[in-house]
């Protein structure tokens, strides 16, 4: 039970200007993983994730979902789309119903569920994304940006996908909204063992939540490692226009100044433990 991507290539444009958006992408995403994808603008992240639920068809290569080739002629691509939920960048721009609740029902209804079941799923999804109940029956256009974003994510969650892909879900949110959203994703990941694929520009976000990080550049996967391993390649990342979490940066600077601290720290929490350890040793 997993997603297997094999030698995926995607080329677009006419004969005169061909652009290779993805080049020989091969990767296995096991169930229940929290995968972070980072890369510069135009590195192919968004194109790649749209392949995973069949919105874009690859020029060559194949994708297997739970052992089945999604490019098979008799494969039910709509079934795939309900299993692999995709939340686009600025998902709040897709809201269209007169009421929040109705909008969230759109996905489950498209799956052919009856009204009652669809509403039950919508209700659960809205609770999961932390939308307060008194907002269920207002127009989505009256909500704040962060609330709209949650409603839109709930709209995808209501289809009860096994895999949830999010393209920069925190773009444009304030720090509080960002933390809440990411914590809710982590909860979903832990409680429902949902596979989560998070595309982000923020090194901190992926460092805090992901088990594994893909670094993409010019349509290829450059690194595919744990956060600690990925962020030890500070120089390469910076050359790509990316970077490492600020706290990693700090610890690396401290180490190079001669302090006996570990430099492979990626979260503030780890850094705190590490620094306390240092001060305790020093205090003695």
């Amino acid at each position, binding site marked *: 039970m997993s997603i297997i991507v094999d030698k995926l290539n995607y080329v677009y444009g006419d004969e005169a200007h061909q652009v290779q958006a993805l080049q020989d992408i091969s990767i296995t995403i096991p169930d229940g993983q929290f995968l972070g994808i980072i890369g510069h603008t135009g590195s192919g992240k968004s194109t790649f994730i749209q392949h995973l639920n069949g919105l874009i068809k690859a020029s060559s290569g194949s994708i297997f979902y739970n052992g089945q080739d999604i490019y098979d002629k008799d494969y039910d691509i709509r079934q795939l789309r309900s299993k692999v939920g*995709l939340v*686009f960048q600025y998902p709040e*721009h*897709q809201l269209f119903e007169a009421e929040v609740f109705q909008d969230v029902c*759109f996905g489950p209804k498209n799956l052919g569920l009856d009204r009652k079941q669809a509403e039950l799923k919508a209700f659960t999804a809205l609770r999961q994304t932390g939308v307060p109940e008194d907002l269920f029956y207002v127009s989505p256009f009256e909500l704040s940006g962060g609330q709209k974003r949650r409603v839109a994510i709930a709209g*995808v969650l209501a289809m009860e996908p096994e895999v949830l892909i999010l393209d920069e879900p925190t773009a444009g949110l304030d720090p509080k909204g960002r933390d809440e959203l990411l914590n809710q994703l982590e909860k979903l990941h832990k409680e429902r063992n949902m596979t989560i694929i998070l595309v982000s520009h923020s090194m901190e976000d992926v460092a805090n939540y992901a088990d594994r990080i893909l670094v993409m550049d010019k349509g290829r996967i450059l690194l595919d490692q744990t956060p600690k391993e990925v962020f030890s390649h500070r120089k390469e990342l910076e050359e790509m226009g990316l970077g490492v979490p600020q706290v990693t940066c700090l610890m690396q600077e401290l180490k190079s100044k001669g302090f006996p601290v570990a430099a492979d720290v990626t979260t503030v929490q780890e850094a705190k433990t590490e620094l306390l350890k240092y001060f305790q040793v020093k205090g003695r």
Partner: protein
Amino acid sequence: MLRDITLGQYYQVNSRLHSLDPRVKLIATFAYIISLFLFKNITVYIIAGLWLFVVIKMSKVPFKFMVKGLKPVMMILLLTVICNMLFTKGTPIFSIWKITITYEGVKMALFMTIRFVMLIVGSTIMTLTTTPNQLTDGLESILTPLNKLKVPVHEVAMMMAIALRFIPILMEETDKIMKAQIARGADFESGNLLKRVKAMLPILIPLFVSAFRRANDLAMAMECRCYRGGEGRTKMKPLIYKLEDKKALACVTLYLIVLVAGGIAGNYLPI
């Protein structure tokens, strides 16, 4: 998905035609279109065809792009040809059952086709060699005298420029929203007409909302830069007729003279 609109598609290349003043191109196209309708005989079409050939060669735009512009009007063209063939009275060539093809009908259909194709190709050259922004600039400048008649020329031109500018943005937006709704299980392909129209709502509503939002933002940004219409407004790149433009205008005049002469002469030819 929605990326195949040819009309108003600029083809980027360096040619003498591209660097001409847009006003000259507008005037030339206008003159050319009128010239096609002045006379109805073969000499005129030969002269106009030669002129078109030279202009195409000068534009350096591959010929297939001109033909692309013809595709959407192919049906109309076919229909006019058939109608002209069938319903023109005159000396019959042959007849099958109740249908009679006349000499006049064939001639009419042929002329109509030539005229139509030359008209479309001619105006396509203008849009292929002139960016939409240049076009609106040119139009504004040509129509400025209408200001005296209280026609808001600048405002109309600005609206046109903005509308043109928004086409690619809104197309991209449509693509994005469409994908987002497909990801939520929306189905645009199956069902009867009513069902399909209903299925468009999840695209149209967000699209309208975003169009209004963008329009609002743009208006705000323009006001923040103290935009207040055309009065007393100067341009960063004002349109000035250069030597090249004057030469081009001279060529157009020459073409018109030759065409009129040819047309009059052609009236005395047997065909």
